[in-house]
C-alpha cells in the first residue's frame, strides 16, 4: 500500500461496485480487490463496508446474488448485474461525469 489515500466520496461506493460488476459477476473479496486495483490503490475502502452496500444493492434489485465456486475452488457468493443495475450504472456514470466536469470548470475559472 503506501502513498496518499483518499477517502471515498459519499455515495460513490455503489457506483464503483456496479462498474466492477459490469465486466463480469464477482464475489465480495474479488470486488474489493478489483476496486483497489482499478483505482491504483488511491481510494481507500474499508473492506467491511463493501458488504452492507452489496446487500443494499441486492435489495434494490440492481444486482442479484448466487452461490458458486471461486477460482481457488471454494464456495463463494457471486454478485451479477441485473438489467436495472445496468441502467442505474449508466445513469450514475453520466451524472458523475456531468458533476465532475461542472466542478472542474468551476475550479478552473473561479
Amino acid at each position, binding site marked *: 500500500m503506501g502513498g496518499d489515500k483518499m477517502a471515498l466520496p459519499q455515495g460513490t461506493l455503489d457506483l464503483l461496485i456496479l462498474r466492477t460488476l459490469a465486466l463480469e459477476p464477482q464475489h465480495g473479496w474479488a470486488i474489493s480487490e478489483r476496486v483497489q486495483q482499478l483505482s491504483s490503490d488511491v481510494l481507500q475502502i474499508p473492506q*467491511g463496508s463493501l458488504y452492507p452496500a452489496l446487500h443494499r444493492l441486492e435489495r434494490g434489485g440492481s444486482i442479484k446474488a448466487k452461490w458458486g465456486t471461486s477460482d481457488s475452488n*471454494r464456495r463463494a457468493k457471486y454478485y451479477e448485474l441485473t438489467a436495472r443495475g445496468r441502467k442505474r450504472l449508466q445513469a450514475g456514470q453520466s451524472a458523475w461525469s456531468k458533476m465532475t466536469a461542472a466542478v472542474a470548470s468551476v475550479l478552473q475559472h473561479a
Partner: protein
Amino acid sequence: MLTDLLFRARALLNRGAVDEDLDEELRAHLEAQTRKHQQAGLTRDEARRRAHLEFGGLQQIREDCRDARGISVVDTVAHDLRYAARVLRKDPSFTAIAVLTLALGIGASTTVFSVVNAILLRPLPYPNVERIVLPWRVPPPSSDVGFDEIPWGRVDFLTFAGESQAFEHLGAFLGAAFNLTGAGEPVRFDGARVSAGFFPALGIAPQLGRVFRADEDQPGHELETVISDRLWRDRFGSDPAVVGRTINLNGAVYTIVGVMPAAFTFPQSVGMPGSFVLPKHTALWVPLALSRGPRVRGEPSELAVIGRLTPASNADRAQAELDAFARRMEREFPQGKGWFNARVRSLTRQLAGDTRRPLLLLFGAVAVVLLIACSNIANLLLTRSIARTREFTVRAALGAAPGRLIRQLITESVLLAVMGGLAGVAVAWSGVEFVKAFGPSNIPRLTEVRIDPSVLLFAMAVSLVTGVLFGLAPAWSAAREQLIPSLNDGGHRAGQSARGTRLRNTLLVAEVALALVLIIASGLLVRTFTHLLAADGGFNPDRALTFELTLPSSSYGDGDRTVNLYRTVLQQLQVLPGVVSAGIGETVPMGGAGESTGLRIPGRPANGDLAPPYANYTILSPGYLAAVGTPVLQGRDFLATDTADSMPVAIVNAAMARKYWPGQDAIGKQVGLPIRSFNMTVVGIVANVKHLSLREEPGPEIYVPFTQKPWPSMLTMHVAVRTQADPASMTGAIRAAIRAVDPGLPIASVATLETIVDEAVAQPRFSMLLVGGFGALALLLACVGLYGAVAYSVTSRSQEIGIRLALGAPRRRVFALVLGQGVRITGIGIAIGLVLALLLLKAISGFLYGVEATDPATFVALSLLLLGVALLACYVPARRATRVDPLTAMRAE
C-alpha cells in the same frame, strides 16, 4: 418495489438461513484476504490479524448488513429476545428469584387492587349515584349515645321532606321482619318498610309491575308489597304473572305490585350504621305509611332517610338546608336543643364506609411489599450487570453500539418483568379467590371482587414500569463504563466500585427498614386480635344457641297472649333434656344495638347543663341472663314471680349503676321510662354486655321483665338456650318443642353465640392475616436481598479472602468480616425502621385494641426477630467464606 418486498419477506421468513449466509460470505472474504497476506510472506496469525484490521468491526458490519436488508427492527428485537432468554436460562437461580419476587409483589398488589376496585372504585349500580345521599341524624357532641348516626323521628322527617328544595326525592325506611305463611312451613323474611320517595331516590325501576304510589304510602292503604328477585324466583318460580297475586304476611293479605331487579337489595345492614336494625338480605318492601298526625309523646325515632339531590343541587346545599331546619326546630322545641342536627353522607361513601380504612391499610402494606420487591430486583440486576461488565465490554469492543447494549439490557428486564407479571396474575387470581373465600361477610360487595381488565392493566403497568425502571439504571451505568480499565481489570473488581456498593447497600438498608415497619404493624395487629379474643364481652359464648321467633301479629296482637306464648315456649324449652337454661330477650350479645330511651331518675338534679339520662332498653325473661352467661354482679335475676301484678322491677348494667348512682348502691333505687307513669325498682346489677363490637365501651343499659307492660311490641324476640352438650346438636329438639307450642311459628337466624362472636372478630382477623402475610413476605424478600448481596460479595472477594487466609488470618476473623457487612446493613436498617415505625404507625392506632401503636415490647421483639432472620441469611454465605481454599481462590483470577 416488488423485489424489495420479496427480499424482505424471504429475509424475514428465513432469518436463520440468511444470517448463516451472511456469516459464510464474510468468513470467505476474511479467508481470501488472509491467504493473500500469507502468499505475500506473512505468518498465518499475522495474516489473519491484518485481514481483520482491514475488514473493520465484524459485529458492526453484520448489523449494518442487517440494516441494509431493511428488516432490522423485527430482526433485532427477535434477536435481543432470543439472547435475553438464553441469558436468563443460563442463570436459573437468578431468574427464579427475580420472577418469584416480581410475581409476589405484583400478585399481592393486583389482589389488593382488585378488592379496592370492587369496593371503593367501581360505581354502585344506581343511576347518577353521586346524587344519592343519606342525611343521618347526629347526636350532640356532648352526649355519649355510642353512635355517630341516630334515627329520624316521624314528624321531623315529614316536616323536612315537605319543605326541602335540595332533594328531588326523599324517602324514609326501616327494617322489618315478615312471616310468610300459607302453603308449607312458615318462613320468616327480612324486609323494609319504605316511604313513597324511597324507590325514586335510588332510581331503580322494577323489572315487573311498579313501585308504591304516593297515595299508597298512607295508613290504611299499606297492604301492598314489592318483592325481591330472589323471593320471586324461590317462592313464585319466576312467575311472569306474579303481579296481582297475594301473599300472607304477618297474618295479613298483601298484594304484590312489583318485582325488583336481581341487583337491587337495598337496604342491607352491611356498611350501614350499627344503630339501625336492617336486614341482612332484603326480600320484600312494604309501604311505610307514616301517619300525618301530630307529634305523640314518647313516640320512637326509628327512621333512616335516603335522598336524591336535584341536578342543580349538591351535598353542601342539602347540608345547609338541614342546618337551617335544625336551627328552626331548636327555636320551636328548646328542650330538644342539639338533637335536631343531621349530616349528609353520600351513599357511595357510606357503603365503602368502615371498610375504607382497613383497605387503605392493606394498600399501604402492599405498597411497602411492592417497594421492597422492586428494590430487590433493582439490586439483583445491579449486582448482575456489574458482574457482567466484562461481557459488555467485550461486546462493545467487538463493535456493538452502546444503544444496542442498553436495548439488550432493557429487553432482558422487560422479559423478566413480563414473566413476573404473568406469574403475578396467577398469584393474584389465587389471591382474589382466597379473599372471596375467607374475607369477612360484612365487607360490602365482596362477592363482586374479580380480576377485571382494568386490574389486569394495572398489573401489566406495574410490571412494565418496574421492568423499565430497574432495567434502565444498570443499562445506563453499563453504557458509561470505561472499556479499557474494566477489560484490564478482568471485570471483577469493577463491581467493587464504591459508588455501586453504596447504592446497593442503600437499597438494602431501605428494604430492611420497610420490612421492619411492616412486621411491627402486623405484630401490633396480632396483639390486637388476641386482646379482642380475650376481651370480656359480658357473656359466655360456649354452648349457647340463639334464634329468632317472630309472632304473626294477627294471632298474637295483644300483650297478654304474647306473654303467655313466650311463657309456654320457655317452659317447653327448660324441660328439654340437655338444656341448662333458656330465656328470651330483645337482642343477643353482639347481635346489634337495641333501642335507646330517655330515663326518669327521681332525686337526680334537673340541672340544665346535665344531658338528660338515657339508657339502652331491653326486654328480658327470667333465665335469659343465665342462658347467654351474663353474670349477675349484685342483687338478682328476674323471677317467674315478677308479673304484671307484682312490683315493677328493673335490672341495670354496671355502667348504668356507675353513671347515674356513682358511689351509691344502685339496688333499691327508682327509675322510670318517659312513656310510663310508674317507676321501677332496681333489683339487680349485671355485667356490661357488648352489642356491636368487642372494642366498644359499653354504655348504660336497663333491662325490664317481659311480663310487666311490654313496650314496644314483642312480636320479634331472640331466644337463647344454654346447653350441656354441643348446642348445634340440640337444634332439632328445640324446633320440635317450638312446633309443639304453635306450628305456625317460624324460627329464624339459628346460630350459636360462638359463631356470632366469630363473625364479630372476622374483620380484625382478616386484617391481621393479610397484613401479617404481607409482613412475612416483606421479611422474606428483605432477607433474600440480604442473602444475595452478602453471597455476591463473598464470591467477588474470594481472592481477597484467599489472600487473607493465606497470610494467616484466622477463619473466624473472615467469618466476622463477612457477617459484619450484613449486620451493619441490618443494624442501620433497623434503626431507620424503628424511627419510621414510630412516625407512621400512629396512623393505624384506630385498628388497635389493648395495645399502643408504640408498644415497646412489640418494637423490640420484632426488631430482634428481624435481626435474627437477617443473621441467618448472612450466616450461610459467611460460612462459605471461611471454606474458601486460598490456592483455588488466587488461581481463579
